[in-house]
């Protein structure tokens, strides 16, 4: 026990004396969460809108007013002819143009039917689709009101409610994702580096030629990073809830317990990597390429797993991050208890044991 304590103390000395690494370890979560939360977002606000409205009747002005009032669009320019519309697409950041017919209101009253043209800049397909959707629904709303006033009942009116994230905030997507990535990064990369550093500096040679058992070396390496990763978890959760308004509907204790579990999984993975490599650089490359990329790409963090081809869907099952993201989304957004995430939890527990067993098997009690 004394040996373990001395080892952990030594490990903390390493962590706290390497100021630069410590700063990266503690600063990275804050920077990443803020970056992802603010900058990388699917929501579009204040897109430039160009209007070509020759008639300026009550209907067209009302629609334009509603578009601008929605906050999604800024009225960039009122064009006089179609040429000007085209120009503004080419020479400015115009994303959407709306073109009304000459006598829209009259047509509508006479024939009960009018056409509006929406032009979108599809060089960014996602943005274009999203803006068209925004505009269409605003126009539809207006149409429904007009119809209602005239007493004509709508045919089929879908009523939509977005559950658990009613405002479709992308932050709700990113905070769990970023949390997963950061915990993975801190845990796996840092432990794998911490152990390979001893190999590189030759201190592993001395540790091996001492009565320290592999278990003490491995556990002694892991414990300080559990503490560090737990601290990071708290920072991310605080940022998520207080800066981005991310809810924690479920039990906080359960959430933290699941975070510790995932940290353990990642740490075990880091140790497994370090048992197979001899240099810090290789360990870092493996952590980055073999862990970070799948974690970002295949965990459902950015791309929905359901829309992947089946080999990738299948592959995503062995990514611990996938299960962790499911768990924390359930707890934070849906407020479910352990009875709904026990399956995913068990998978993570199983993975952790597998990694630890593989690490101990692979831990070399000799050099080379």
């Amino acid at each position, binding site marked *: 026990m*004394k*040996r373990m*304590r*001395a*080892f952990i*103390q*030594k490990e903390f*000395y*390493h962590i706290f*004396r*390497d100021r630069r690494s410590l700063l990266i370890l503690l600063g990275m979560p804050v920077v990443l969460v803020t970056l992802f939360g603010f900058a990388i977002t699917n929501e579009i606000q204040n897109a430039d809108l160009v209007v070509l409205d020759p008639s300026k009747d009550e209907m067209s002005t009302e629609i334009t007013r509603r578009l601008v009032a929605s906050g999604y669009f800024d009225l960039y320019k009122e064009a006089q002819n179609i040429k000007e519309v085209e120009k503004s697409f080419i020479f400015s950041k115009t994303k959407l143009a709306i073109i009304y017919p000459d006598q829209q209101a009259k047509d509508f009253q006479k024939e009960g039917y009018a056409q509006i043209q929406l032009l979108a800049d599809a060089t960014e397909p996602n943005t274009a689709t999203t803006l068209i959707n925004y505009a269409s629904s605003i126009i539809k709303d207006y149409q429904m009101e007009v119809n209602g006033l005239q007493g004509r009942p709508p045919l089929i009116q879908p009523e939509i409610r977005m559950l658990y994230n009613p405002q479709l905030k992308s932050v709700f997507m990113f905070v769990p994702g970023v949390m997963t990535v950061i915990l993975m990064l801190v845990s796996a990369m840092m432990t794998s580096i911490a152990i390979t550093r001893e190999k590189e*500096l*030759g*201190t592993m*040679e*001395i*540790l*091996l*030629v*001492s*009565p*320290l058992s592999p278990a003490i070396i491995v556990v002694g390496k892991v414990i300080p990073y559990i503490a560090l990763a737990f601290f990071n978890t708290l920072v991310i959760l605080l940022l998520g809830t207080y800066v981005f308004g991310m809810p924690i509907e479920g039990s906080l204790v359960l959430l933290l317990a699941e975070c510790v579990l995932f940290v353990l999984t990642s740490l075990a993975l880091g140790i497994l990597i370090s048992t197979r490599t001899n240099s810090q650089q290789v360990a870092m490359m493996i952590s980055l390429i073999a862990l970070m990329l799948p974690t970002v790409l295949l965990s459902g963090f950015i791309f929905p797993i359901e829309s992947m081809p089946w080999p990738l869907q299948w592959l995503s099952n062995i990514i611990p991050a996938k299960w962790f993201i499911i768990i924390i989304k359930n707890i934070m957004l849906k407020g479910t208890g352990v009875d709904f995430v026990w399956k995913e939890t068990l998978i993570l527990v199983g993975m952790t044991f597998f990694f630890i067993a593989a690490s101990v098997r692979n831990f070399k*009690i*000799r*050099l*080379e």
Partner: protein
Amino acid sequence: MNDSIAIKVDAVSKQYNDHTVALQEVDLEVRRGELFGLIGPDGAGKTTLIRILCSLILADSGRASVEDWDVVKDYRKIRSNIGYMPGRFSLYQDLSVEENLRFFATTFGTTIRANYDLIKDIYVQIEPFKKRKAGKLSGGMKQKLALSCALIHKPKVLLLDEPTTGVDAVSRKEFWEMLKQLRDKGITILVSTPYMDEASMCERVALIQEGRIMDVASPEEIIRKFDKELLAIRTNKMYQLIGDLRQMEQTHSAFPFGDFVHLATREKIDETSLRQYLRDKGHTSIQMKPIEPNIEDCFMDLMI
């Protein structure tokens, strides 16, 4: 097993994955309480042999034991009872002198105070710097700290891999004095070094080259065995001199030693004709004198 043998190596061979042969059928016995030198050039297999003895690597064939513990089977026993100092400085550079020492003491289940008497003579020299980070120490002080750490658990056997490499001459001399004191306290010490002049500090030495032990004897014996005539020669063209001497028929070997070239011949050579030979080759200000062999001459002789 013989009571007086501390380290026994029996027909140990080792080949690395890239097919370099590190050790070939090495036999060696180090007596208990002996200061034993393992001497040979870089790449001779010194480090490999020491690592096999500390159970850090496995031999391909043969057996080795330290204090009757087999290096494969009883590796745990060996690891808690030997002191090992690797060739490269391998302490924690970001820990202070005191923290390093305390860490290794705890690792071996002891304390600095319990074994202070053993390391006292060494540690007092670095104690003024005990708050300093190990990485900031000078080469000589690093060696003293590493030795203190290797000694902190009162090992029966001390295995030192090139402890004096990269250390200044004064520190080297001090270091050997410390080793002698430790030997007097009953610790068996196996130390490897590429410096042949250090052989005279040991009680017995083994000369190792290309994975083979060439000779095991006391330094005096090795000098006694030397059966060649030796001349120290110096001229104005030292570089050319070696080549010219090696071309001669009678020459056994010619190696530079400091300011002189030592010429070894099987039979006594006539100095006047040698002078004439060198003058013909264009050498001037020729000095030469017969000398007694030192340990380095003997090694050079054994190695070729």
